[in-house]
């Protein structure tokens, strides 16, 4: 009996010792995919290589890149409205060029770009080991290189510095290389050229995939602003690249100005009067996790303007300034004729125009919209940065939302990053500014080519200064709220000037934004704050 007990107890002890033999602790991955599974499945390649393209619509987000390009100018102001929109002074700071390294939107924009560059690097790394046809490999490589250079250019434009990490090195604790100044400019140019050589032609490209024309436009944009970026202008090179774009014959000025921005504008791809060179495509049949807020309905329109109930919760925020209206629209064109001012094709349905909305506001049934206080809602030219009532400020709606079959706040208008009218205006500017190929008459012809198309009265100018002024006004009329105003005002020397509720400054440090403090904190001393911050 005792022996049996001893055997039993010994057995228990033995089993327990065996159980104690340690298990290996391996992290179970349940809802994500390991790197090795990704490498093993070649069908996943295109899911990776197109991710950089997915971030293009961010360029039009009002609180992100777009805000940093527009809200610091006369075109857009997000005024404080009573208790609304103060937001720690964020919008006022952008408008008055008084941001700081803690600024949330600047921080977000930097992080978005860093993130987008990671998508590019992840894609490049996947292409290094990809087993696919050489042609496809080259096409993808070109596209990814273009996207990387594009996002680097966006950072360079805002901060004059951008990080580069070799895609071959996946160790994120290794510091990146930072490029700035002329070296940065040259880096961008050479990579854009390399991308151009590898990318596919627009003739072969599906809608939404950047093609060779986008690389040309990137080069043109770089050279257009080279004087601002490096201190040495080179308008002839810009002229070379815009001429190349024009020479492709892919583009013509749109016959219907607002049709470019309407829902399902993807259907205009390769139409005879297609202007879009680079687009960020939105797809409202799917939930993208967050819904793109491209300068549209929600952040600008009044709480009680619901677009037939499609937009039940608007925020009554941004508007444009009287300074801009006066100097660009009221003196620069005829708002009664110019098709770009306002369009009533949906007015009878919603009570909201495409383009500029001012005066008494109605709903689709013609009833006057009331403010929250109960007064009739009357949008005025007047606006005050620090204290605007609900009705102050003319509202702009360039990208009209879809009105039937809508999922609220989701849109299917592609955000146009670059388009042909800009190319023509860039050419006009180069012709006016070039010292070797100056052609003031040619420049004015291009301006009037656009004005004729937009049903605006033609204009004339003969001196270089006057021609440049006409080009500047025309850019304000044609490209308003498309995200170029900051660059334009810097290039035309008006950026620091007084405008509505901004007294003007002489501080050229304000041309660029402060580098986010978190980026400096995270750089282990490699990154230094921009001067003046």
């Amino acid at each position, binding site marked *: 009996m005792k022996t049996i007990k001893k055997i039993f107890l010994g057995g228990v002890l033995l089993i327990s010792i065996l159980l104690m033999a340690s298990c290996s602790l391996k992290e*179970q991955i349940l809802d994500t995919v390991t790197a090795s599974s*990704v490498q093993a499945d070649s069908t996943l390649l295109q*899911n990776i290589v197109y991710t950089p393209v997915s971030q293009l619509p961010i360029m039009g987000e009002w609180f992100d890149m777009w805000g940093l390009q527009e809200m610091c100018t006369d075109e857009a102001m997000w005024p404080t409205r009573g208790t609304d929109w103060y*937001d720690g002074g964020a919008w006022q700071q952008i408008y008055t060029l008084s941001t700081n390294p803690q600024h949330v939107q600047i921080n977000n924009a930097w992080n978005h770009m860093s993130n987008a*560059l990671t998508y590019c690097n992840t894609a490049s790394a996947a292409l290094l080991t990809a087993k696919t046809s050489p042609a496809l490999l080259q096409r993808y490589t070109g596209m990814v290189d273009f996207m990387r250079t594009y996002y680097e250019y966006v950072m360079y434009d805002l901060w004059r510095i951008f990080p580069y990490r070799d895609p071959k090195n996946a160790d994120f604790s290794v510091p990146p290389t930072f490029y700035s100044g002329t070296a940065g400019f040259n880096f961008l140019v050479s990579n854009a050229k390399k991308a151009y050589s590898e990318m596919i032609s627009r003739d072969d490209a599906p*809608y939404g995939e950047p093609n060779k024309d986008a690389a040309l436009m990137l080069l043109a944009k770089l050279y257009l602003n080279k004087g601002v970026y490096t201190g040495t202008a080179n308008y002839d090179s810009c002229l070379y690249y815009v001429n190349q774009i024009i020479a492709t014959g892919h583009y013509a000025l749109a016959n219907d100005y607002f049709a470019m921005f309407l829902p399902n504008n993807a259907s205009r791809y390769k139409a005879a009067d297609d202007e879009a060179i680079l687009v960020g495509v939105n797809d409202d*049949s799917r939930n*993208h996790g967050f819904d793109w807020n491209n300068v549209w309905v929600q952040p600008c329109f009044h709480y009680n303007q619901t677009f037939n109930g499609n937009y039940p919760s608007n925020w009554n925020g941004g508007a444009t300034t009287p300074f801009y209206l006066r100097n660009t629209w009221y003196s620069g064109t005829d708002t009664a004729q110019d098709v770009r001012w306002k369009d009533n094709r949906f007015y009878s349905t919603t009570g909201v125009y495409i383009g500029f909305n001012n005066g008494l506001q109605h709903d689709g049934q013609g009833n006057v919209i009331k403010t929250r206080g109960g007064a009739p809602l009357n949008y005025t030219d007047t606006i005050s940065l620090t204290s605007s009532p609900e009705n102050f400020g003319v509202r702009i709606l360039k990208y009209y939302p879809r009105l039937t079959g809508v999922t*609220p706040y989701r849109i299917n208008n592609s955000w146009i990053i670059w388009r042909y009218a800009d190319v023509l205006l860039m050419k006009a500017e180069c012709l006016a500014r070039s010292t070797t190929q100056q052609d003031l008459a040619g420049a004015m012809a291009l301006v009037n080519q656009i004005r004729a198309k937009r049903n605006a009265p033609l204009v004339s100018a003969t001196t270089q200064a006057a021609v440049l002024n006409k080009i500047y006004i025309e850019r304000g009329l044609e490209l308003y709220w498309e995200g170029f105003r900051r660059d334009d005002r810097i290039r035309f020397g008006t950026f620091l000037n007084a405008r509505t509720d901004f007294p003007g400054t002489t501080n050229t440090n304000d041309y660029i934004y402060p580098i986010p403090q978190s980026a400096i904190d995270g750089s282990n001393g490699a990154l230094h704050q921009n001067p003046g911050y």
Partner: protein
Amino acid sequence: MFLLALFVATTAFSQQKVTLSLKNVTVKTALEALKAQSGLSYWINANDVDMQKVISVNLKSTTVDDALKAILQGQDVRYQLSGDHIVISKATQDVDPKEKKVATSGEMRKITGKVTDLVSGEALPGVSVIVEGTTRGTITDLNGIFSLEVPSENSVLTFSFMGYASQQIKVGQQTHINIKLAEATKNLSEVVVVGYGIQKKSDVTGAVSTVSDKDFNKLAAATPSEMIQGKIAGVQIISNSGEPGAGSQITIRGMSSIRAGSQPLYVVDGVPLDEGNTSPAGGNSYNSTPTDPLAFINPNDIASIDILKDASAAAIYGSRGANGVVIITTKKGKKGVSEVTYSTSLSIGNIRKKLSVLSADQWRQQRDALLGYNTTTNLDPNDYHANTNWQDEVFRTAFSQDHNLTFTGGSETTQYRASLNYTDDQGILKKSDMKKYIGSLNLTQKALNNKVTFNAVLNASEIVQNRLPLGTTGYQGDALINALQANPTWPAYNANGTPFQIGSANNLSPVAMIYYTNDLTRETDVLGDISANVAFTNYLSYKVNLALDYMNSNRMIDQDQKLDYEISNGGAGQRNSREMYNYLIEHTLNFDKTFGVNHLTVLGGYSYQNFQIRDAYVTGQGYITDALLYTNNIGSGNPTMTSISSDADSYQLQSYFGRVNYSLKDRYLLTATVRADGSSKFGTNHQYGVFPSFAGGWRLSEEPFIKKLNFFDNLKLRFGWGETGNSEIGTHNSQTLYTPTPVASAVVGGQTITGLIISKTPNPNITWEKTQSTDAGLEFAILGGRLMGDFDYFYKQTTDLLLAIPSQAVSPTSFVVSNIPNAKIDNYGVELSLTGKAIQTKDFSWEISGNMTLPKNIVKNLPVQMYQTGAAVGQGLSNAYCEIITSNQPIDVLYGKKITNIDSQGVVHYLQTKSGIDSLTYLGNPSPNFIWSLTNTFRYKNWDLNIFINGVSGNKIFNNTAVLLDKTNINTSHNTLSYFAYDNVATATYTPTVSSRYMMNGAYARLSNVTLGYTFHLKNTTYIKNLRVYVNGSNLIVITSYKGFDPDVTASAPFGGNGVNSFGIDNGNYPKPRTFMLGISATF
């Protein structure tokens, strides 16, 4: 040798038969065996009996008397039965207390007297009376009378008795000495639960506090954490809200982590629980206040809650011990006790304090004055002509009830306890309630000649909770905020009885929100735990423990399409579910042996625990009819508006641990602990961590030189050092992982190509946070235990802080989770608890106990300038924050603009920088620097009265609710707080911002709990053994200058994506009710 045995027998004692067959065992072991069989415990006068003497006995069906004789054969001792104790002490010449000895010398003096219980006044038989320094002594008789001769008037008599505090009396001139013995302070006799075992309180070297069931706060539908709120020094417990089922934030010795969480580890009957929230998340407009992770336990089943506060105690839980450990032990069946107990309570709850907002008439006056309306020519279009007090419309008197049925019983080999609980807890806000059904069974079975003990615990519960839309402060979404800011001129209801709405999504009626929302959560929990303890020898045992903890929770939220906010969506339905389980395998070996004056206990163990969590979310919108609950047919809406998602997570923990307790002469105590934890969460470079601790104790009161002072009943010094970890760092931080995600999906050629991205910046070096803590403690008891206390100094430093630091550019995420070796959080302070028995007479007693903590907290060497946290919510406050974490400041220091003056125009001026910009500055510490509580217990005959007061001071609260109710609301036809409406700030120019205007003093003193009870002594009835009736009031009075509902606030307002904790923000929290309760408990 001569043996004298005095035996005072009771019938039961003499008739009980025992069987003992023991060979070569110590007297101690033999007595333990006898104790186990007879159910009689023994008490031995120190050093009188040689417990290590090796004996052999072979007894069959002998009486206890004979068994004792056999065991103690050859020792000069006597024994006596007293109650259910056998008292064993050295035999003296005074064999018979009544026998008069002839004085052998002129110096001998005869002393007589009586020993009684201090409280009851009843005679105490069997008390040992010994003349110090001699072998003289006696034992009191059945009437408590003693008589003995002492050598001189300098003689000192020591009276000692099991369960009572010893007393020493100098004889002096007295010849008759009556002594009242007080029951021993529970601290001296009680055991505390330490990790993987229990210890006598007197042997504990770490900072461990115990609250047993009789000291729990009595509350209607209490949660375990509420039951010990304020009871333990160094432990701050704040209820997340007054909502039924809400959890609490427990902070033990300060917040020691920025990111990894500050909640302690919960261990229920040896099973460490997962830290995850059991309630599935709601959408952004639904209540997401965390629910209580311990809700599945029936509070009536809890025997004790032990808190391991310092690292020397918590190191046995290694990488999970840094925030302290809360050990919950449930009740077990007892041998020989067969009882059925039914208890019930009924309670009524009400809002303690409503906020003063403008009445409709006051509101009209303000509107007219500000916006120029009048009653004749310029009518206010937003005046709807009613006069509604919205708080009255949403609050209600809540009726709750609680029923408990317990039966327990046990034989020699089998003991059981089973309980059933039904709780219906109504909230004071309409449509919030919780019903709980809990069944539990605890079964102990001995087998193989008592060598093996099996224990099984099964706890199953069903929790059904209704919630209302809360917790999303801001413009929409929060019914409580809307009840405060709703236009008071709206009617609450239309003529047809439906809630009135104005037809704007931006001006919601709180009544409509509640009326048109259904939010039901049904949660099922099962905790099963089975263990087998094998005693190989009397000093070596092995235990295996297997446990499974399973939770499944389903949440169904319906927002009716009639709600203004939902009209355009066509209503919304959400079904969210969460499934969590973990299983545990644990082996421990225990060695426990005494070698002379040395006592050694060694524990070694291995444990493996595997955790799994799975969530699924389905949302539908666009329904054509509300004639059915959307969630019952969620696919019947608009298919393009449906969204689905799910996630799954898993981690494992494998650990080896050991502990050595050594005591020398019961005076010098040493404890060493080590645990090696491996976690799958940690990076491959640091998968295992070792957490050691050392502690020493010195029981000064056992030293002769202290005994001589005849002052201390207990005096112990403790010192401990240890290192623990915090592994609440999330999973999958170390690997490069790809996630398919719609956010990165490109649309190319009309096709949407799902993006595959690296979702986290990997950090293969990631590891636990380390907390080193040092504790020095002093425990004392004096005046026969009438005054006793604990004093502790602690210093706790957390290093290797786990922070989301900005990643270096070109990285998948803007933050990378990393350990920063130099970044530190220091928590230090003192804790003091005192218990005094002010009055102790037969009929009346008064006991006061109190505790206080003076904590300090400071953050050092952060790698970034600051972390912004504490998202401020409200119109115009996007991206605003109210707290920061920065070096050389307390964690979560309040931060914002400071008002310098308000000028005659009512313009608010803030502190500015030299360049004239409003500057941001520190505005206070959200953590108190003084936490205290005071309990008074009175007893008069059968009546008892308990009064519990607690409070904090030194902290500030960011009153975000006040921001949402500031006077600028008049512009937008919302309501405002009265104290803002009439202050001197000009409404026209003022813009609410995070400023000192909303930083309010959070100090308070609260009359938390008053209980008055009456116990019927029903000795003569056969059926009811015990009957108690009590009334209780809780949260009765709060003295505070704080202007919100309640100064007890927690924050759940992390800012941005950095996952940094925040604290002390009033976000319109569900107010704690004031409740009155009537309770009855009957034992049959």
